[in-house]
């Protein structure tokens, strides 16, 4: 099978943890080049992973003819520019979330991708977790009846994680991207995937850590089609011990005949249905689809990252839309931006 030559632009945390190792592992790709403005970082990575071509200017990488696809892992404020340039060079693009800082940027990215006929994917890896896929299947099959309420909640250490520390992620946080934009985008997208786009959004955002200029905790409520109410709670926690917040990462959908609770980071979902014999005997039943062990944390999450990269590559090979396309990324962005606007204006934002 022919391998796709790929490159990674921006070699920060997510590139090192997800994109670079997964392109190297994937049999469909050949990681041909890496690029980062920081020469020391990019050289170190090239040496570590034995990557032949190193760039500090992404334009040179795009024009080198070395790659057919790139991952864009630069700060969000630069997504639009890099994606548009990549699309103009006819290079398939995988952009990390959130898609952009505003809808105009997102629209420009989508239009350029479409005009240049490239595959444009966005990094909402949670879509690939088997527990969420199962939850969506049960929801669509009416296993919990008609959905009436949904809740998505995630508390992560985000940039307050000591390891991430003083890196660009934190400086980005100080400048522009709050917790709702960061982790919130993931769960906003999960809600959209499950229930469709929201029709009305209201929100309250706040900051507790001194010196941080963006939101580090947020509460959003939304109304979806058919009067389904939804809420998003997201926070960055400085608590050093992950166990303190491990129960605060749930996607819950309450229906007229049952309930689904899917662990945001996988691998399990809990299910209750008013008629199922198993539910009547056991109450809420914890299920783990696929090959994962319910007690081993983060194995499924690591797998979801592999899957999103694989899906992007497969979409190019098979000439199909990526599962999480740029359009999907735009929907999540629109939701999040509406929440910011609702908080700023202290009003309900109508998205109909």
């Amino acid at each position: 099978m022919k391998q796709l030559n790929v490159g990674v632009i921006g070699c920060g945390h997510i590139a090192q943890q997800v994109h670079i190792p997964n392109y190297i592992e994937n049999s469909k790709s050949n990681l041909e080049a890496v690029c980062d403005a920081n020469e020391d970082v990019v050289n170190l990575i090239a040496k570590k992973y034995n990557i032949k071509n190193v760039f500090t200017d992404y334009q040179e990488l795009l024009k080198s003819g070395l790659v057919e696809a790139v991952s864009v892992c630069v700060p969000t404020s630069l997504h639009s520019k890099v994606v548009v340039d990549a699309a103009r060079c006819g290079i398939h693009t995988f952009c990390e979330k959130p898609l952009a800082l505003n809808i105009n940027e997102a629209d420009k990215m989508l239009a350029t991708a479409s005009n240049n006929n490239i595959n444009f994917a966005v990094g909402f890896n949670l879509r690939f977790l088997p527990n969420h896929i199962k939850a969506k299947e049960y929801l669509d099959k009416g296993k919990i009846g008609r959905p009436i309420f949904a809740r998505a909640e995630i508390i992560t250490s985000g940039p307050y994680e000591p390891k991430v520390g003083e890196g660009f992620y934190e400086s980005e946080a100080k400048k522009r991207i709050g917790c709702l934009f960061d982790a919130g985008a993931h769960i906003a997208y999960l809600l959209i995937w499950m229930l469709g786009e929201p029709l009305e959004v209201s929100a309250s955002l706040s900051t507790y850590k001194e010196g941080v200029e963006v939101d580090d905790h947020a509460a959003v409520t939304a109304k979806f089609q058919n009067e389904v109410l939804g809420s998003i709670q997201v926070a960055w926690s400085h608590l050093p011990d992950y166990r303190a917040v491990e129960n605060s990462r749930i996607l819950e959908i309450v229906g007229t005949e049952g309930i689904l609770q899917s662990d945001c980071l996988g691998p399990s979902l809990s299910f209750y249905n008013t008629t199922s014999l198993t539910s009547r005997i056991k109450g809420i039943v914890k299920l783990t689809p696929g090959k994962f062990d319910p007690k081993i944390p983060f194995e499924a999450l690591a797998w979801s990252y592999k899957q999103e990269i694989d899906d992007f590559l497969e979409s190019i090979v098979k000439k199909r839309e990526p599962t999480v396309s740029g359009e999907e990324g735009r929907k999540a962005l629109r939701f999040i931006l509406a929440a910011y606007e609702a908080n700023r204006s202290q009003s309900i934002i109508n998205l109909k």
Partner: protein
Amino acid sequence: MKQKSRVVIIKADLNSIEKAVNESIDLIDGLSDLPGKKVVCIKPNLCGLKSSSSGQTTDPRIVEAIIKRVNVVSNCKINIVETNNSQASADTTFEKLGYMDLTDKYPNVRCVNLSKDTKLRVSLNGEIFRTLSVPETMLFSDYFINVAKLKTHVDYYYTGVLKNAYGLLVDRHLRMQCHGFMDKILADLNTIFKPELSVIDAVVGMEGFGPTDGKPKYVGAIIASKDPVAADAVAAQIAGIKPTKVGYLKHAAKKNIGEFKDIEVLGCDINHVKTKFEFIPRKWYYLGRASLRLQKFSKRCSNFARFLSLTRSALSTIGFSDLEKRASFSDMFGLVWDTIFKIDG
């Protein structure tokens, strides 16, 4: 005062099966909880390809009689469920034993090969199963009817309703390896798949090297109860086997799955159908028991090997320092204990 478990015995021959099934269900009001249910699963015992007259498998005419009664009470889907056996796939078994004819005759009936069904790992935290791979069809069934066959069992003296649930273990290799833990396995399986109606085909049973290689033994009865343990206790007595000798039956009673002793028998007198099933020579029985003990030991060893492999996988995925942050010591200890001493079914 606690109500006695009721078990009904109705005399039946090959020509009066439907009448006997109807009578037995009526006497215990066996389908009283059925109205309103949408999906019914019926599990016959199809552990091989021999016909019901050989004593190995459940007579499809009994299942058909139950289907007719269910259709009178409720407008629901009916799944006849079974997993692959050691001789053939469930699909072949359904075909050869005449169960596919029922799907042609009744539009709401389908035969489901659970071995091919989508499986989900349920966190059971049972006596022996830490997790259990459950077919989606079973998970979403609203009502479960266990239709067993009265047989001797070379390792446990008797097999009927409770043991029929062993066939719901979808992993056939696991089924072969776990006979040593039968008491606990059946308690777990009959907790999560507790039948709301249990029927035992005792028209022709099996004696000797049961449950697959014995000889047919004519008994001429249908046994039914809402209590699976009570149904088995009465059926064992009919076969001339003391229920107290059947370890898994005693264990299930201890786990409150059903009543073992305090039973009211309806229909015909137990002495009118009671017989003596021939059992295998003692030396073969004890040899079998020794092999089960070895099987148990070897399963523990393979669990320990699995624990080592899981440890490597967890540490290589997230590293020890992160693992320490993400799981408490008691969680980790619980995981170690469960991985070694419990089974993922």
